[in-house]
């Protein structure tokens, strides 16, 4: 029982991080209608900047990492995405794949096969809450992501930006007529995606994981199904999807000995299995809007 509780807490913590990453996918999708495949590379580069500066001051390093990712995302939005305005969402999506290739080649050249320690103040400290022993870094990750998510939803539901976002998703063609500037929404979405990616990236590389290596972008890609499961245009769907796959992944890892017939390392592909199952029955995801079209 204590085992299960412990796994659930770690699962929720990992799931909250997946939720943050998925939220980044979703807001860019809502604002621009594209899937941003360079998200994982942004996350990796942001986390890499943090590891390089962490010896000065961890908090400053995190801010610098966020600034770097935001600046890069702004550049991408202003220069690349903007110059493709009016093209099909498919073409812009493929462009982000090209961008991912470039960024990942750079990252691979910089990081190589090294594993860079995050240099965070929590280290490998464990805390006990009742019967549950959990790494402090996981607990901090859970708290931070919950705070970030809460702040996001307050902003999203209360501010005029949030209203604009929801209006733009509902009717892309009518929103501009109501005075909503889709351009600005797109900028805000890319900036937010950068912030969320780096926060998640930092915690994905802290204990119990050993640090930042090139595969961190693949971990980010594992969060992609979270966005799909929740529904690509649903913000709360992203969080629910993230929590779902995070918990499932940690549970599958914890009870690996019972799942041997599925092969070693099954927990790493479980998220994709879940995604395929959900898509099979609900093509728009759990909370996504089913497309209704008039010809």
């Amino acid at each position, binding site marked *: 029982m204590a085992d299960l509780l412990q796994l659930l807490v770690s699962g929720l913590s990992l799931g909250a991080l997946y939720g943050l990453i998925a939220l980044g996918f979703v807001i860019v999708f809502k604002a621009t209608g594209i899937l941003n495949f360079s998200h994982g590379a942004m996350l990796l580069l942001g986390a890499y900047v943090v590891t390089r500066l962490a010896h000065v001051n961890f908090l400053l390093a995190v801010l610098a990492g966020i600034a770097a990712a935001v600046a890069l995302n702004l550049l991408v939005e202003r220069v690349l995405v903007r110059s493709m305005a009016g093209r099909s969402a498919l073409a812009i999506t493929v462009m982000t794949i090209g961008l991912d290739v*470039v960024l990942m080649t750079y990252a691979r050249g910089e990081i190589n096969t090294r594993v860079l320690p995050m240099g965070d103040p929590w280290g490998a400290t464990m805390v006990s809450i009742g019967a549950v022993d959990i790494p402090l870094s996981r607990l901090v990750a859970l708290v931070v992501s919950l705070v970030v998510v809460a702040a996001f939803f307050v902003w999203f539901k209360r501010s005029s930006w949030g209203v604009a976002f929801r209006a733009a998703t509902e009717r892309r063609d009518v929103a501009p007529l109501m005075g909503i500037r889709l351009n600005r929404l797109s900028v805000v979405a890319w900036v937010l995606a950068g912030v969320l990616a780096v926060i998640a990236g930092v915690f994905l590389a802290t204990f119990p994981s050993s640090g930042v290596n090139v595969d961190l972008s693949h971990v980010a890609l594992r969060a992609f199904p979270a966005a799909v499961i929740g529904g690509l245009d649903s913000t709360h769907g992203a969080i629910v999807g993230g929590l779902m796959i995070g918990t499932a992944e940690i549970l599958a890892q914890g009870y690996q000995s019972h799942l041997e017939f599925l*092969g070693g390392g099954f927990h790493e592909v479980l998220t994709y299995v879940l995604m395929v199952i959900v898509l099979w029955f609900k093509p728009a995801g759990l909370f996504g809007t089913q497309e209704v079209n008039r010809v």
Partner: protein
Amino acid sequence: MSELVDTRVAAPAVSTPGARAARRRLPPATLLRGGGLVVAAILVIITPSIAGTWLPVVMNLAAFAVGVVGFNLLYSAGQLSLGHAFFMGLGGFSYAYLSGQNSARTDGLGLDPLLAFVLSALLVGLVGLAFSPLTSRLGGLSLAAATLGLVFLGSHVFGMAERVTGGTSGRVLESMRFGQYELYEARDIWYFVAGVAALAFAFAALISRSRVGLALEAIRDGEHLARGLGINVRRYKAQAFFFSSVYAGVSGILIGLVAGVLVKESFTLYLTMNILMMAILGGASALVVGAVVGTALFIVLPELLRRYGDAIPLLAPEGSVTGLTPAAAATYLFGAAIILILIVEPDGLTALGRRARIRILRSRPRADQSRS
């Protein structure tokens, strides 16, 4: 839509007196196409004699181009499939299993290689069809998401089926055999690969001009409009996915036959990304020419950098840990090229070529008349 070779090669034929007389009877496009086919056939036949150390590169080119055509079939219908690596691996390993022998490390059924080839291509197609409830309902981007999952699931399955894939050290493939005649020499393998590729290209050109091709074009231009016109969108999408997976499977087998060995680590997301880059470079709307041009660039350029990289000052030697290796340089170039191409000319290099040709022909009034 699909001239089979670079028309610059065939262009002089049009201006000779004999061809000018023939033009009265045949439209120039048909002549160009015919001439192109003849040139292509001659090139295929003389390749082993002139290619030298480049022969393995050219063989790889043909093998990959088949997979890229499969990608284009879907992409030109507005469907982005990222599952190619999975279907290629599935084809390659099914062939290995069906034609292979039992050994200490691997299992095999020991079927005739030719039969195994056909069966595995069909198997891949059937697996593609099995996913059709999923793939035919999803549009462009969700399809990308779902098929991305297939690649990771595929890697896992290949890892589990060690007796089929040979585990981390890979599996040696049985050579192709016609009766007693075993295709072992590079020259023989080339003729087989080129023959299969030519058939695949011709069939793709036929598909794109058939009812299916027209329906897919309509679906790309507007799925709901197509449905309104009475096109069974889900059926045609399922068909496109079927053909696309068969092409991917055949490509996987050909790659295995060229290399002689298949390793499961080759069939990861990177392979899918590479296929996608080849397709976009060449231009997915030019089904076959685009695939050949894009694949040629993608496969030949890194090889050029690897062989003659010493002459370029910025490059670090191959295999070095720091600095810009030839492979990294090529990847940078391709990634940047993809971004540029999508911004400037979404139809890829073949469309740039087409544009240039039209401009040149316009500047010569007589040639302009012959085009109309």
